[in-house]
Every structure is written in structure tokens, then in C-alpha cells.
């Protein structure tokens, strides 16, 4: 049931995420039963996100900034439907492609070519579509004849290139990037940034997490700043990055 206003493609409403941290991880039946009998099953609650709300319109490019542990990856996972929020809801319109880690859908025993079909299937592409775009994917990844080698023999750069070219072969409506543009050599980084920029021109909405403030300023139009699970700044990329820079300088002066 979509209740999005015409231009909105993503709406995050009052999302909060709680994790239960066990003092000692209990992952077998024997310990569980013993502790249950001894009433020693105790949890510590950790709220990773508090009451996050924001909306994205079509074509927005949102940068998500924050120090380590602020909750950026958790937020992205919730938007990608990998994690279910404890409270709140996320509504979105259109095809969403999350790039939370390049090559996570790969099976290492499979060749690159076989993985193109597998990874494409995981991302929700149809068989005909992958067949059609197969050559283009191989060409962009620059893997040539290595495409028929098992992925376990690939270098991390090769895996990243393959993952990136499969994931970006289609123009998703919403693209989520979690620090994936810092992978690969300078030549590939340039190529991937150009492909992302091409997507912008076609109106793809992007959520972008990066520690490189400079990259965020270059690629995004808006930004939000997270701290300890709350949004403490939400505005244009210039406004928020200035605020962020102040924060960095403040803490380093302590």
C-alpha cells in the first residue's frame, strides 16, 4: 500500500532499531536450556537508531554522513529490506538495488560468467535481461577471458569490478551505495564514478554513504548527518558538510 506523494520515491518514518546484546552469546541448545532453567537469560538493549524520518524525491542524491558507529550501515540495511526495523516503516516506489558490498552474492566455486546469472537473479533481473546485457557486463568489468575462471581465483579488485558492473547494468529507480566507490584502482574508480553520474542524469535516486566528504560533496545534492542513531542535520550537501566539518574540528581540538 503506497502512500507516497507523486514525487516521493522513498519515505522513512520514525524508524528505530533495537538490538539485543547477550552478555555471552548462547548459540547451542544445551546452554540455552541450562540458562533458561537458571533464569540467566539476560539481554542488554542497544538502540542503534532513534526515530529516523526523511523523504527522498525522484532524482535526489542523498549523502549519509556520520562518524563510525553512528548507524549509517544499519539505516541502509533497513532501507534495503535486509533488516526489519523495531519501530517505524519504510515505503518506496520502484526497483531498489543495494550495493552494500560488491560481490556478496557470488559463489566462489562458480565462474565469473555463471556468477553473472546468479548475481543478476539475486538482484531480481530476469533471465532474458541478463542474456541481453551479458556482453556489456563483461566489457565494463574488463575481465576478458578471466570471466570463465572460478571467482575464488579473482583478486579483490576483479570481484569488485564484476560486482559493480552487474549491479549497475540496469538503471534502478533507487540505488544504495555503502562506501563502494572507493574500491579498485584509479582508472576503475573514474569509470565507476562516471557510470554513477550517468545514472544521475537519467534521474536515478541515490543514497550514498561515504567517509570521503569530498566525494559526497561532489556527487550529492542533499545530505543528512547521523550521530549515535539520530539525525542531527538535514539539508543541502553544502550546509550539512560545513556542519560536519565543524564537528570534526571540534572533536580534534578536545
Amino acid at each position, binding site marked *: 500500500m503506497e502512500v507516497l506523494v507523486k514525487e516521493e520515491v522513498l519515505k522513512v518514518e520514525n524508524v528505530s532499531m533495537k538490538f539485543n546484546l547477550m552478555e555471552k552469546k548462547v548459540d547451542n541448545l*544445551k546452554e540455552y536450556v541450562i540458562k533458561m532453567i537458571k533464569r540467566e537469560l539476560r539481554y542488554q538493549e542497544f538502540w542503534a537508531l532513534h526515530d529516523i524520518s526523511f523523504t527522498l524525491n525522484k532524482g535526489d542524491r542523498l549523502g549519509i554522513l556520520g562518524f563510525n558507529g553512528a548507524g549509517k550501515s544499519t539505516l541502509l540495511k533497513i532501507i534495503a529490506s535486509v533488516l526489519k526495523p523495531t519501530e517505524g516503516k519504510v515505503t518506496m516506489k520502484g526497483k531498489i538495488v543495494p550495493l*552494500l558490498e560488491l560481490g556478496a*552474492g557470488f559463489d566462489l566455486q562458480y565462474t565469473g560468467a555463471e556468477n553473472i546469472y*546468479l548475481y543478476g537473479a*539475486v538482484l*531480481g533481473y530476469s*533471465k532474458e535481461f541478463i542474456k541481453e546485457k551479458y556482453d556489456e557486463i563483461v566489457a565494463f568489468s574488463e575481465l576478458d577471458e578471466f570471466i570463465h575462471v572460478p571467482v575464488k581465483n579473482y583478486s579483490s579488485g576483479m570481484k569488485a569490478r564484476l560486482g559493480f558492473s552487474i549491479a549497475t547494468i540496469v538503471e534502478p529507480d533507487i540505488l544504495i551505495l555503502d562506501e563502494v566507490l572507493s574500491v579498485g584502482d584509479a582508472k576503475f574508480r573514474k569509470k565507476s564514478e562516471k557510470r554513477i553520474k550517468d545514472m544521475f542524469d537519467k534521474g536515478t535516486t541515490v543514497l550514498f554513504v561515504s567517509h570521503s566528504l569530498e566525494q559526497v560533496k561532489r556527487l550529492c545534492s542533499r545530505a543528512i548527518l547521523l550521530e549515535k542513531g539520530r539525525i542531527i542535520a538535514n539539508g543541502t550537501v553544502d550546509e550539512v558538510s560545513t556542519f560536519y566539518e565543524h564537528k570534526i574540528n571540534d572533536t580534534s581540538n578536545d
Partner: protein
Amino acid sequence: MNKIFNNFKKYRFLLAELVKKDIKLKYRRSYLGILWTLLEPLLTMIVLTIVFSNLLGKGDESFPVYILTGRLLYSFFSNSTKAAMKAIRNNSAMIKKVYVPKYIYPLATVLSNYLIFLISLIMLIVVAIVLHVQPTWHIFSAIIPLFLLLILALGCGMILSTMAVFFRDLEYLWGVVLMLIMYTSAIFYKVSALKIGNKVWIFQCNPLYSIIVNFRDAVLYGKSLNLNALLISTAFSFGTLLIGMLLFYKNQDKFILNI
């Protein structure tokens, strides 16, 4: 309900790819490859026949077929449930990065094992022909126990894959349960040869037993299906499937926190 069906349609291609991958990779590095699917039951059957044929006296020419009918079905049940148990953990990398309906993982492992099982039935046909087992029209009713077997494996697979995420030692526990099931499935002995009188109901508590009985009746003895066994196996199969689906559905959002 509708939403679940639509979701399933969307990921049909992924399911096919996962099943294909399971089967391809299972035999990629082995020398005999898919031939082993046929060889293994044959060799087991030979060993079991030699060891146990004295339990039935001489003259039972079709004993090897008797063994095979039970053994093949049990092997499928054992392999598919063991594989389903590991399905979620083995795919943890994918689950943590992209949304995919999670039931697809145990479903794919059970299906790929089922396909391999169907291929192994070729060996059953070969041995049956060699030993002059007369086929009757009742063979076609074998489809029913085979279908119920799949449902049972799916149900147990879902239950196991859910619980195995939270309790790692389930593997060992299930190994013991499987052993119990194997010895009470009448694979290499006949229940009629045991002196237990009215205590057949003990065997009927084993869900696999009733399915094997029906399969044998259809294929080996040319009898129509035993209604009692049919009812028991239908109840067990769909019961476990229902429980499995409920258990899985209720807990799937917590998987990612434990893998």
C-alpha cells in the same frame, strides 16, 4: 497470500539458478560426477543384500529391490534435511546484503536433492528389470508417496533450517534422530519377520515408514495403496510443512542477527 505468490513469481529465476548451482557444483570436482548418484545406491544395496539376506531365508529374489526402495527414499530424506539445515548459514553473505525471500534457500536445497533422487530411481528400475520384478499399473500410484516424501522433506527442512540458525548443535541431534528413523524404516528387514505382534504402531510413528510402505506396494508388490499408511503420511507431511512454514515465517526476521 497474494503478496507471497507474487513475490515467488518474481524470484522463480533465482530459485532455478540456486537449484542448478547446487547440482552443478556437487559434481564439478568429482571424477565420476553424476554417475556416483547411480553407483552409490547400487553398492549399498549389494552390501546390505549380502549381510541381511539370511534374515529372510532363501528364495526371495526381489530382496535387493526391497532394500533399494527403502534406501533411496531414506537417503533423499537424510540428505535434503541435512542440507536444508545449513542452507541459511551457508548463504549468510547474501542474506546480509540483499533482500531475497529467505525460504528460497532451504527450498532450493530440498529441490536439488529431490532431482538427484529422481535420477537415482533409474538404478531402481534397472535392478527391478534384472530381477524380473513384474510391473503393474499400480506403479503410477507411486507418484503419491513420492510427492508426500517431498512435502515431508520440505516441512522438516524448514523446521530444521529455522532452528539451526539459533542452535548450532542441532546438527548432531538431528544425526541421531536420522539414525533412529533409518532403523525403524524397515529398509533391510521385513516387519512381518519380526515377532512384535500388534506393535506395528511403533513403526507408524516414523513418518518415513508409511511413505516407504506405500511406495513398495506400488512398485514392488503391485498392490493398491494402503489407505491407513496414506492417511498417516499425508497427515505427517502436510502437518510438518505447516509447522515448518509458520516457524520459519515467525523467525526469519531474526536470522540476520544470528548468522
